[in-house]
């Protein structure tokens, strides 16, 4: 029922074969198709506008007009431009302090607790000695959730006084040093970027910890508003990167382009299942087709 972008572009370029040369008008129509496809994928409106401008300039400036295979030439420009925004290759974690500290932050329900446990499981598999810290004292049973996940993967969970996230964070560090953990993962409560008091709490935790990584966990199904929340989290906390969850669904994941564009920070991991091993390093080139719809 739905024509994908490839087919649409083929149509744009095919309609002219036989009728002579590609015109600027054809390129503009092709660019319009890319624009629609990106909006369908939930790439933010303003981000699409800027991205499209770059593509159009390139397409008109380069040899698409005179190429024998204008469609392929055009698609290559779009892909290359997208990879340019997303970054060429995977950016890994940078964990230099001992113990290394990773703080997980984000909106409610994005997948912070699950991703915290997934990362802990990954470290454990690599032979490290992780500690999980339950710094969400607000959501009903959030601490229980992390304790149960910790049990599943045989990683200890520090809960402290179960009341004060800032105190829990600093006491957790003492515990980590005492028990020679080499990486500590802090699961924080979900919060809205416009909740000043809760954002202030994260800032204080970050001040105490000076984390190696502050990862914002973002749901792959997020729409236009992602740029707003990502921007505020990044400005408040100086994020080091993102984890995009629930990519095992069929969301196109345009949010990946949006947040990278507005923050310049890389996506480091993707969540690909509810299970504890469902986390993978992010490879920009692998999502390009998905975001474009081809």
């Amino acid at each position, binding site marked *: 029922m739905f024509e994908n972008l490839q087919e649409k572009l083929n149509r744009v370029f095919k309609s002219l074969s036989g009728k002579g040369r590609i015109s600027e008008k054809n390129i503009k129509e092709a660019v319009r198709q890319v624009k629609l496809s990106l909006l369908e994928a939930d790439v933010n409106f303003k981000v699409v506008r800027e991205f499209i401008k770059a593509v159009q300039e390139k397409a008109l400036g380069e040899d698409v007009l005179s190429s024998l295979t204008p469609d392929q030439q055009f698609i290559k420009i779009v892909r290359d431009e997208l990879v340019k925004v997303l970054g060429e290759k995977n950016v890994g974690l940078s964990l230099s302090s001992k113990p290394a500290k990773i703080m997980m932050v984000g*909106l409610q*329900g994005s997948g912070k607790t699950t991703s915290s446990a997934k990362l802990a499981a990954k470290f454990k598999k690599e032979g490290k000695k992780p500690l999980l810290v339950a710094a969400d004292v607000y959501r009903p*049973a959030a601490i229980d959730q992390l304790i149960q996940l910790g049990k599943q993967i045989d990683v200890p969970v520090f809960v402290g006084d179960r009341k004060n996230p800032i105190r829990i964070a600093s006491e957790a560090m003492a515990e980590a040093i005492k028990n020679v953990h080499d990486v500590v993962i802090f699961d924080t409560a979900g919060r809205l*970027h*416009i909740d000043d008091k809760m954002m202030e709490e994260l800032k204080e935790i970050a001040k105490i910890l000076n984390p190696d990584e502050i990862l914002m966990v973002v749901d792959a199904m997020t729409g236009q508003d992602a740029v707003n*929340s990502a921007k505020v989290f990044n400005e408040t906390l100086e994020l080091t990167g993102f984890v995009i969850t629930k990519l*095992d669904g069929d*969301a196109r994941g345009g949010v990946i382009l949006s947040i990278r564009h507005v923050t310049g920070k890389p996506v480091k991991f993707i969540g690909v299942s509810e299970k504890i091993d469902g986390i993978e390093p992010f490879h920009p080139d692998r999502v390009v087709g998905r975001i474009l719809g081809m």
Partner: protein
Amino acid sequence: LSFEKLDDETLEEIEELLITSDMGVKTASEVIEKLKERANKSDNPLETLKEILRELLKIDSVEKHPELPPLVISVVGVNGTGKTTTIGKLSKRFVNEGKKVVLAACDTFRAAAVEQLKIWSERVGVDFISQGQGADPAAVAFDAVSHAKSKAKDVVLIDTAGRLHTKHNLMEELKKVHRVIKKVIPEAPHEVLLVIDATTGQNGLVQARKFMETVDITGIVLTKLDGTAKGGIVFAIVRELGIPVKYIGVGESIDDLRPFNSDEFVEAILGTEEFEENEV
């Protein structure tokens, strides 16, 4: 948004506003076309725009009343949208109406989902039926509905596990839960509420379509409207699938659930609402 004349620039501004609300390009273009058509006949184009948006949301939302109690409400949706929290808030509303409520812990998969619902049941002071983690969700639902029927309870709220609509097995599991409920009360579940997170983009429509193919969705709950996301995807859901929005979630606390009001929703989408203190 405010404007008096509909020039091209204004139309573009409106289209941008609608798309950034997550309404989707298709629905937004239709709104713009309608607006252009009707604008010359109207001397207040902003009011015309509101009218068009309200019309899109217009759909009869019937309250379900079973002949005999209990009323069974199943709450479904993808992961992390706010199902369990919505059940906590809903049960408070029913208790305020003097109803006796039973919560069914049918998310037996996610870590501490059972405990989370239990805490809500204690907050509100309602019955809680569970068989712990790992149990068969259909068996828990059967238990809860049987309990409610025999103990003359008024409402059963079924908390189901979050599941992506693309996972065939999990969608089949949901069907089974509903099938087993029918063994106790053939007309149940009387309501099936699909919970959609207001931050969701175009995938929201796909979710609604797939859940509707699986079970008989009777209404939408749009959560997390207390953020800056507008939840515009419900325009497409209401229009294409004919499912009404019944409630909105506006926070994490027990009272942060409100009946859906299309006038207020349209004002919020356009950013034209009067500032209003939250009523308690």
